[in-house]
Each structure stands twice: as structure tokens, then as C-alpha cells.
């Protein structure tokens, strides 16, 4: 984002476009929109440097509601289009707003390659574990056995764990939050947006029409929420009475803090180069029915694709001077007739 000398003066209102919001009443998307509109001004930087890119899906309508630059592209391709924007214009702040179908079904490959490359993008994936816009088919995050329009006898395919996928794809920033947990979501989104490189945020989002209550077990429920805080022992439960410890065999176990003592708990280290532990944490709740970690799993620094590309250009110009077109097309082996 380009430097401004003035303090940021954007307000939520500045970011609200004049377009009627066309989500179903009660959809979790509203809360995410509102939170994004509140968080973005805090980042500083002018509105004209903001770009929101999306694919297709209910969630992908997001850019229309932001009074910024925006592209509502085609299904699954937002990470690619956004990569072109970000790589060619490192001065911009580029967001990708996407759904579980858009990002992990048709768009899975672009997603993992963006993560691998570490393009400067903030990817926010609205996971409602369903295809909303096409009226309720199961998605790659739907639980096994899911009964939907396209699986009347229950789905037979094992879902992805989006955090695991991202970590397996070399992501430098991976987090998870929940649509209506505003404070948590704000903090996660702010950190994600400030991250240099590709930040991937999974947001549990309620689709009250086709998959209502999918995350009720986790939402607001302290028993089922493991809030990850860098540098802190991993505790959860109504009063933090439970915790996560590492067995010598290399398995994570859920323990009673009183029984094992706080020192036995694993201390969360989001900045660790090795994504192994973050990955193990991601497995803790394969579906949001067991205690499920939310927060930042991983946050490490790695060269950023667009910057590295630009550095090669700067370096070439520094060494050879700016290109001379006549010289280029004439080449070294020309002759006069």
C-alpha cells in the first residue's frame, strides 16, 4: 500500500458502495462485510489503493459492496487474477474474497499456487461447507455423508481441512475465524492484511438457507473453541481448564490443565519456520464438532513474489540501464543493404 503522509481518514461509510446487498436475510456474509469495512480503514492507506477480487458464489458478490476497485471474476480464478494485479502493482493492497467451492473446488490449484508463490494477497475464504449460489450442493468441505441435492444418499468423499491444505501448500500465513465473532475476526483480518505475502483466512460462515447451523457447535462456545495465541500455552474451555499437550510419540492430546500442570502444555508458536506443529494443530478438529482451534496457525516471513519480481527488474535496469528498443530489435548480427 502506498505511503500517505496524512493519517488515514477512511471510514466504514467510505467503503460502502451504493449497491443493494443481495444476500439472504440472516446470511453470515453480512457480518463479514461489516467487519471488513471496519477493519480496512485501520490499515491506513488510501481507498484507491484497495482492490477486492472474487470468483463466483454468494460470497464472491463481496466486491460489489465495497466502494473500492473490484473484480467479480469467474468461478475459481480469483487468486490468479489477483496475482496478476498484485505482482504487477506491489503498491496496491489486494484482497481475494472467495467461498469454499470457489477456492477449494474449482479454484483449488490457483489457491495453492498463490500460497506457494507468496504473492501479496489477503485471501478470505467464506467456508459455509456448501455451494450457496447454486442452491445447495455439497462442497469439498462438507462433512462425509452430507445429504444435499446432489448427494441424496449422502456424500461419499472425505472433505478437505482448509487449514491443512494451506499449510501443505507452503502458506506463510494461515488463520481461521468465525463470521460473527467480531473482535476475533477483526484481529485475524487485520493481521492477515498486514502480512507481507499470501495470507489465507478461513472464516466459518453460516448459510442459513442451505446449511444452517453448520458451525453452531463452535460459534461462541468456549468448550469447543481453542483460541490460538502466539507465545501462549494452548488452553481452552470455559475457564481455560483444558489444554493441548504433545505426547512423545508425536501426537497432540487434549488434557486437563489441573491434572498435567500448565508447564506440560504446548506453547503456540505461529512464527516457527517449520509448519509441522501448525499442521498438527490443524488436525485437532477435522470437522467443527470436536474442540476446534481458531486464530493464527502460522505467520512467518518469506520473500514476496511481486517484490522479488520487481527486484529482478530493478536489478536488470541498474546493471544494464533501461532497455533501448532500437538496440533490442536490431540485435547484434544485423547488416546493411
Amino acid at each position, binding site marked *: 500500500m502506498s505511503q500517505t503522509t496524512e493519517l488515514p481518514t477512511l471510514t466504514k461509510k467510505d467503503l460502502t458502495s451504493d449497491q443493494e446487498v443481495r444476500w439472504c436475510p440472516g446470511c453470515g456474509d453480512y457480518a463479514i462485510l461489516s467487519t471488513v469495512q471496519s477493519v480496512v480503514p485501520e490499515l491506513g492507506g488510501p481507498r484507491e489503493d484497495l482492490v*477486492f477480487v472474487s470468483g463466483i458464489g454468494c460470497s464472491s458478490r463481496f466486491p460489489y459492496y465495497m466502494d473500492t476497485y473490484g*473484480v467479480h471474476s469467474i468461478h475459481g480464478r480469483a487468486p*490468479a487474477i489477483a496475482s*496478476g494485479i*498484485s505482482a*504487477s502493482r506491489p503498491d496496491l493492497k489486494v484482497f481475494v474474497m472467495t467461498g469454499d467451492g470457489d477456492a477449494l473446488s474449482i479454484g483449488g490449484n490457483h489457491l495453492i499456487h498463490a500460497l506457494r508463490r507468496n504473492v501479496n494477497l489477503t485471501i478470505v475464504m467464506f467456508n459455509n461447507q456448501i455451494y450457496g449460489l447454486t442452491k445447495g450442493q455439497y462442497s469439498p468441505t462438507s462433512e462425509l455423508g452430507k445429504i444435499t441435492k446432489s448427494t441424496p444418499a449422502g456424500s461419499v468423499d472425505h472433505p478437505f481441512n482448509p487449514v491443512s491444505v494451506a499449510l501443505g501448500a507452503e502458506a506463510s500465513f494461515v488463520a481461521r475465524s468465525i463470521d460473527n465473532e467480531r473482535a476475533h475476526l477483526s484481529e485475524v483480518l487485520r493481521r492477515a492484511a498486514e502480512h507481507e505475502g499470501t495470507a489465507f483466512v478461513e472464516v466459518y460462515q453460516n448459510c442459513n438457507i442451505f446449511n444452517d447451523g453448520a458451525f453452531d457447535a463452535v460459534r461462541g462456545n468456549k468448550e469447543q473453541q481453542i483460541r490460538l495465541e502466539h507465545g501462549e500455552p494452548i488452553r481452552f474451555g470455559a475457564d481455560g481448564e483444558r489444554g493441548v499437550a504433545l505426547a512423545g510419540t508425536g501426537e497432540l492430546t487434549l488434557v486437563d490443565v489441573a491434572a498435567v500442570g500448565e508447564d506440560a502444555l504446548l506453547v503456540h508458536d505461529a512464527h516457527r519456520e517449520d509448519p509441522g506443529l501448525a499442521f498438527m494443530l490443524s488436525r485437532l478438529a477435522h470437522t467443527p464438532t470436536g474442540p476446534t482451534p481458531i486464530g493464527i496457525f502460522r505467520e512467518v516471513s518469506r520473500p514476496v513474489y511481486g517484490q522479488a519480481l520487481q527486484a529482478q527488474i530493478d536489478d536488470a535496469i541498474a546493471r544494464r540501464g533501461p532497455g533501448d528498443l532500437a538496440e533490442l530489435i536490431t540485435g547484434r548480427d544485423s547488416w546493411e543493404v
Partner: protein
Amino acid sequence: MTKTAEKVDTVTIRFAGDSGDGMQLTGTRFTSATAAIGNDLATLPDFPAEIRAPAGSLPGVSGFQLHFADHDILTPGDDPDVLVAMNPAALKANLGDLAPGATVILNADAFTSQNLKKARYAADPREDGSLEQVRVVEVPITTLTVGALEDVPDLNKKQKQRAKNMFALGLMSWMYSRPTAPTLEWLREKFASQPTVAEANIAAFEAGWNYGETTEVFDHRYEVAPAQLPSGRYRQITGNLALSYGLVAAADRAGLRLFLGGYPITPASDVLHELARHKSFGVQTFQAEDEIAGIGTALGASFAGQLGATVTSGPGIALKAETIGLAIAVELPLLVLNVQRGGPSTGLPTKTEQADLFQAVFGRNGEAPLPVIAAATPGDCFHTAIEGARLALRYRTPVIVLSDGYLANGAEPWRVPDVDDLPDLRDDAAFTTEPNGPDGEFLPFLRDEATLGRPWAVPGTPGLEHRIGGLEKAEGTGNISYDPDNHHRMTELRQAKVDRIADDIPPLEVDEGEGPGPRLLVLGWGSTYGPVAAAVRAARREGHAVAHAHLRHLNPFPANLGEVLARYDRVLVPEMNLGQLRTLLRARYLVDVQGYNRVRGLPFTTRELVEAIAAQLTDVDADR
């Protein structure tokens, strides 16, 4: 030099050997030396899709044909005067293309019984009479090469043998009186870090030269005088190089940065390779995960204010179709380059064809019109790329630029244009910086009245924040609109924008030749330019009256095309497909256009086209 030199006006030679024998390199170096002399020339590399099929096998044969002359020529030649065959497979694969009386220079060392078997020869062709029609010169190239390198240290026999292509190059260079300095200099430079290898190659090259000069096998050599080309500075260029330079030039002339999103695919990859080398021009290349991401990043870059481009071949265009549709819907400039190859599907990756015209014009869902243009010669790829950029920028539209495998790898001498003579694209590329609406708002789909193009407002411009997307948009505001009449209007506007280009391109020019008014028009497009022009010349030499025209703009067509077609009793369109341009012309102008269609993965020969022209002329006369 003791031997006499015979002056000839035109020569076609072909180097053929194993994929690992370095035939492409040999041919390219011979071409460079030929260009340096000032001959006109045209080349035809022809290699298998495998990197290196098993040594000695037929599928592993790699060939390079060069036609050079003291006058301007248009094709790589129909049949070679000389074939250099480095092994039996190379002989077998190429013998059929030789006219009686041609010379074949064989590497005698390679005619072992094992190699004959690999080439599926039942008997030694040198002995069973199958070479009767040609003049055979057997040279123990491998032995002579190894012998010449006796004193080169640190190389084993196998490594020494690898220099045998330089022996062949030396021999042919002697035979056709090519200058040696450029080749020697190039070898020294290429192997600067491996002096032994440089030494070996140079020794082999010189041994070949001396072999020609001293042995009695050849009693004379040949000379081909420089061609009288229009004056100017010339260089040798392949189509892929010209396409790459065209893109760099277009960006330069538009005051934009070039962004190429690509994914390797034969025969287009060299454009990506070439552009990756020009970072000092600010060129960004992005090797994407696939073709869809290639065009996706390019479209993103366009939105962000770059000259976005993507390069691929037919199967890649198929994958990009959906995103091309998006580019049409959001009306952003974008260059989509298709270096065509043999199809359908994976087809013949290293062979040429022009069967992607339908796909270019029609290959998307919905009413999705865009401009399509095609290059005629390797050097013309440069200007075609610039024309593509001009249309993309001025009309805010994706443009498909067609080249093909023959242009991509074929070379010709090219008059280097003066940079100041190239079109100035800055006005066409101008970003919008101020609101354009009646109430001070920004209307991203308010069109320019002349071009029907929409404003290009790039991120970072305060006050012009806006959203674009693939859903139908309301005229002016660009807001999502499901209104039936708006959709019809927008559909017609997108079509009208492309149609309007017909008035912004030069009318089609027809070369009628001299003499009586021809009744037959031969109309070409793309890389058939050379063979068609050569065939028309030849037909005229035979006394036929034939008109010739060549289309660069395939969609829309030049405004006068209908009138041109109506002028002739007969129109012949030769195409390396089953009649794609012909179909477009028939649909548009209701003219009973005839086709000459061959899909052989190779450019047309002059001969077959002369025959096709003659057949049409007979028909026209019969109709009289």
C-alpha cells in the same frame, strides 16, 4: 581457395540427423552465415515432439531446411538440392522429399548394420539401388571428426564424436562459400567457459571445410550472390522472436509495462523465454500454474494498468476460453497470442497448422466477439503484435493474434524498422483519471463515441473506484443488470465495437500482376503467405493471370473485402485446415469460395499450389 566456384541463384539444403546430433544448431548457424552474406532466405526446422528419441530411430530424426537465393524468395523451398544425412534413419525419413538429381551427403560411418536395423532398413540402401536417382557422396564424418580432434585434450571419444555436426557445417560452408568468421566467433563465445569444447568444435568445423577444399570428392563449389533487397538494416529473425519484440515494442510505444502471463507449450514457449530476458524493459513474465492462470494473471495485470498478454498454442486457447469471455465482458485490453500447431487435442505439437481460426473467432460461450489477426511471415509477427496491441488498447478488448509453428521457428532476413516509424499508441493507452458522469460520478461503461471503448481507470486513481465483472452490466454505470433490453443492447454494442474496427484498418490490397485482368483471385491468410505468393509468381511465369491478396485481419474483415471478392470469377483460398477462412467468407459474402486444403503439418509447397491454381484456372475457363 583453389577450386572454382559456380554461381547459382538459389539453393535449398537440408540437414538431417538424430535429435541428439545438433541438426537444429547446425542449420541455424548455416542460416546466420547465409544471412550475413546478404542472401535472401527462408528456413523450415522440423523436429519430433520427443526430446531425444532413441538414437538412430526413425521417430528421432530431426531436420532443418534452408532455402537461400540471390533474389527475394518466399518459402523454405520445395525439395532440397542437397541433403546431409547423418545416419540411415535421416536418409530414410528424407529421401522421399528429394527430386531426382539431388545430392545426398551421407555420414558413411553411421551406416552400421545396427543403425540400418534401427532405421528399419532391410538392406543397405547404398547397395540396393534405392539411391539411384540421386547423387550420393559418402563421407566418413565421424571418423574424420575424431581424427581431427586427436590433439584436443580432456575429451573422450564420445565427446569428440559429438562435434561431427560442426564437421558437416564446415563442409557445407565450404561448398556454398559461406564466411567462416561469424561461425568461429560464435563458437568461441558460446563455449567461452569451456575452451576445450570450443577448440574441438572449431577444429571439427575447419576439418569439414578443409575436407571440401582438399579432397577430390567435390570438384567445385557454389556461390550465391547477395540478394537485392530494399535498402535498410537487416537481421535474421524467427517468428517467435519477432512476436516477442513486437510485444516489447508495443508496450514501449504505448508507455505501458508489458506483463506476460504464460505457461510453456510447444511451439509458443520461446516467447515466454525471450521475454523473460528483457527485464530491463520492465517486462514482467509470470510462469503460471496452467493456461487459465496465465491469462488470469494477464487480465489482472491489464486491470491494474499494464499491457497484459498471454501466449500459448491451440490446447491452451481452449483452456483460456472462459477467461477470454470474461475479458470481453469487462472490456479490458488484452493480447492473446496463439502459435498454432497440429490438432485436434495434443495433435502434432511440433508441426504447423492453421486450424485454430474457428476457435479464435467462435470458441466461447455466448455472443463473444473479439478482433482476430494473423501474421504472414516470421518478420511480420513483429508488426502483427503491435497491431494487436493497437486494437486491444484503442477498443478496450481482448485480441487474438495468430501465428503458427512454421512462422514460430522459421527464419527470414528482416528489415529492422525505425523505432520512430512504429505507431504511437500512447493516446490509445491513456488511463482515465477524472470522473466522466453528468453528476461527477464515474461511469465505467460509458463508451467513447468513436470507438465504443470504455474508460480504463486503474487502481490507485482516486475517485474512480469501481467494480467490474462477468455478469451482464447496465450501460453506463456497469452495475449488474438483468434487464432484458439492456442485455440486448449490450450484446449489440459489444458486437458493434468489434465491427467498427473494419473502418480503422487498411482496405485489402490486391496484387493483380501485369498483363490482362485476372479472373482468379488467390486469397491467403497467416503463414501461407510465402508459398501462396511464390506459387502466384510461378503461375504468372507460366503465363497465367492470377490476382493475389492476403488477409491480416480475420475479424472483422477489411471493409472492401466483399467488393474485392465480387470482382473475380473465382476465389481460391488455400489453407492448412479443412476450409475455415473459406467458411467465414462464404457466410459473410455468399461467394462460392473454393478451397485448397491440406493438413499435413508442413507448409505448402510452391508446386502443389501452382497445380491448385492451374486447376482453378482450367475450371474458370471451362465456365466461360
